[in-house]
């Protein structure tokens, strides 16, 4: 049923206290109510983004700085577009970590930017916990756009939104997350969020790419892709970094594809209409076959579309908790 975006927003505006957090640092710490609030709000922006006029003035006068210590194309542009569509002034800052000694300099950079009075900082950093550290030092809202192998909350939200829109629910679904779980912040955030929403999550990969005590996250662990995807509603593949395929964690791309690449044969073990997802960017022919990535079950491009809507919802929700007037 198409929902009028105006109506939806009006409804949500009545429950303003639904999202009370000053920052979005991770899925950890969000209540089921928080998650559903953000997903519902995202729905309205999906509608808005499909209109000719995608622009709103929700964030007019606000300044959003995208502070990326780690390079990114899709997440950064998604946040940039989200901010612009809501009327914020958006500035992108890319800081390469190579020239920095981590920790202290992160704080220095944050303090400097804070002095410019931004309202929202969107931060990505290669070190787990760096975004939270930074959030303690600034007086604006902070969104974690990925910190090390810790969390990437907006990715998990956009994945959940994609699944919910396609399958109508998340509760009770069997969802397999496959590949390099060990180094993946996407996997951690997704496991937390999907578990919170009542999905039955499985992870699959070679032992060298799975956390040692993965079961403690409340997931089922598999070392064979075929077995992991049996009867699954969703098969989510993770990106494997090139430097891990040279024998350090797995022997070769060839062997990884042979045992853990999602091709037609492996996918045939999942439910016939199972969704295929990937947070991107993909290594075609390594973790996923091109025919599957571009096939009818793939919702990979839809994930990108949902990304903008989810980020608009997050910016919107956090901005409601910002003070109207800052103390000089």
């Amino acid at each position, binding site marked *: 049923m198409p929902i009028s975006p105006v109506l939806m927003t009006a409804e949500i505006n009545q429950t303003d206290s639904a999202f009370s957090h000053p920052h979005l640092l991770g899925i950890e710490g969000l209540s089921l109510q928080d998650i559903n609030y953000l997903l519902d709000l995202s729905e309205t922006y999906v509608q808005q983004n499909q209109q000719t006029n995608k622009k709103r003035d929700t964030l007019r006068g606000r300044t959003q700085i995208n502070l990326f210590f780690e390079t990114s194309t899709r997440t950064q542009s998604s946040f940039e577009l989200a901010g612009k569509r809501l009327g914020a002034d958006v500035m992108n800052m890319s800081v390469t970590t190579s020239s920095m000694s981590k920790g202290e300099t992160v704080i220095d950079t944050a303090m400097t930017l804070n002095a410019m009075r931004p309202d929202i900082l969107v931060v990505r950093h290669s070190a787990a916990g760096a975004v939270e550290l930074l959030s303690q030092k600034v007086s604006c809202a902070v969104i974690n756009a990925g910190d090390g192998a810790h969390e990437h909350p907006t990715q998990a939200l956009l994945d959940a939104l994609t699944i919910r829109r396609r399958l109508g629910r998340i509760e009770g679904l069997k969802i397999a997350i496959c590949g390099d779980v060990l180094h993946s912040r996407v996997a951690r955030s997704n496991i937390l969020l999907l578990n919170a929403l009542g999905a039955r999550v499985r992870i699959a990969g*070679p*032992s*060298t790419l799975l956390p*040692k005590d993965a079961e403690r996250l409340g997931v089922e662990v598999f*070392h064979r892709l075929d077995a992991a995807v049996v009867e699954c509603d969703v098969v989510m593949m993770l990106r494997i970094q090139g430097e891990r395929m*040279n*024998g*350090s*964690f*797995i*022997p*070769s791309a*060839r*062997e990884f594809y*042979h*045992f853990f690449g999602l091709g037609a044969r492996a996918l045939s073990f999942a439910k016939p209409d199972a969704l295929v997802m990937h947070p991107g960017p993909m290594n075609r022919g390594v973790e996923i076959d091109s025919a599957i990535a571009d096939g009818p079950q793939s919702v990979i491009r839809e994930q990108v579309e949902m990304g903008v809507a989810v980020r608009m919802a997050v910016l919107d929700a956090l901005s409601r908790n910002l003070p109207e007037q800052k103390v000089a």
Partner: protein
Amino acid sequence: MVLIPAHIDNYSARPVAYVNARLFDPSSSLDETGGLLIDRGVISDVGAGVTAARSPDTEIVDCHGHLLIPGLIDMQVFSGEPGFEHLETLGSASAAAASGGVSTIVCKPNTQPVVDDVAIVDFLERRARDTALVNVHTMAALTKGLKGHEMTEIGLLKAAGAVAFSDGPFSIKSAAVFRRLLSYANDFNALVIHHVEDEDLAANGVMHDSEAAMRLGLPGICDAAEVIVLERDIRLVELTGAKYHAAQISCAKSVEVMRAAKARGLPVTCGVSANHLVLNEHDVGTYRTFFKLSPPLRSEDDRQALVAGLDDGTIDVIVSNHEPQDIDGKRRPFAEAAFGAVGLETLLPASLMLYHEGDVKLDRIISALSCTPARLLGLDSGRLEIGAPADFVTVDLGMPWVLEVEKLKSKCQNTAFEDRKLQGHVMKTIVAGRCIHHFEP
């Protein structure tokens, strides 16, 4: 189509009954007088009921009361192919194996090129099929180029036929690399075999670090070089749960470490070479390079501890660690000479010395040479049971003989048992029902 090498002419389409034998199989606690009926390469009957009288239309072979045991399985053989054909080939190694009662050899990966690619496993399988008399299995490399850094394609190599993984004569220095190897291998239920020796501690040592080495003025290899790596490995097995096999242990402290690890229920096993069970550091004498082995021959106390470890099951398998070396490699000053000795043809008689001395029971010895390696490698052989491959050996257990170097079938004669008086001789070796070796006194 199965290609049979031209020199095998003993193939019979008729069933063959080996009768009047002392059937001995530790895997089923079998020890009785009887016979073995072979049909199309497979054991079709076994026991006291198999006699000449009861086997019409069958070729009868009288075993004259000799011991009939499962064919030996040697987990540590350097076959020379590819790249070292001047030392040994699959053909010559398998002839030596046949002569020694070894029906299955597992070849080490430290060849040229190294067995770290599916294509090389495939080459060896074909080469063995065309030229070898005995069953040949491939041990693939754990790390690319045996360099100890990057893991090989363990999944694909196993699918191609590799039965185990090892870096041959090299230890993997990095604990992090070894941990990931164990984790990864465990996903494929692959057996990891490791040479336990700390490279830095062993350095340029050439024999056991002891008074003997001091008097000879030779650099020693302390037993700690072995024990440190073994203990590290066991901690990593504890972390990963992987199947682990120490290729060879050589000292008393290693026996203690293995005994404790097994008591804790860890999936660890180990091997010992027949050389280390019957020889010690004093055999080196005055710089005799045929006794320069890796790991080195150690003290008499160490040897006795190894024998005790074999007897109580702490040590699982006996290997030959067959290392052919030519005269150019051995006729050098001790420190410069190559390591290793040929051993396929002395594996059984050397091991039987322990039985004749009363040190180890016969079933422990035969088990360590056949059924236990079969179990570790996941092979169907190593047992005298209906349906099992007809791989077996008849042995005159009491026959005294002297090892004459010129009668060795191996391309190289670097044996540690030259002119030694031995007791127990292989009479016949049968692989897949074909008699490939028959001793004529």
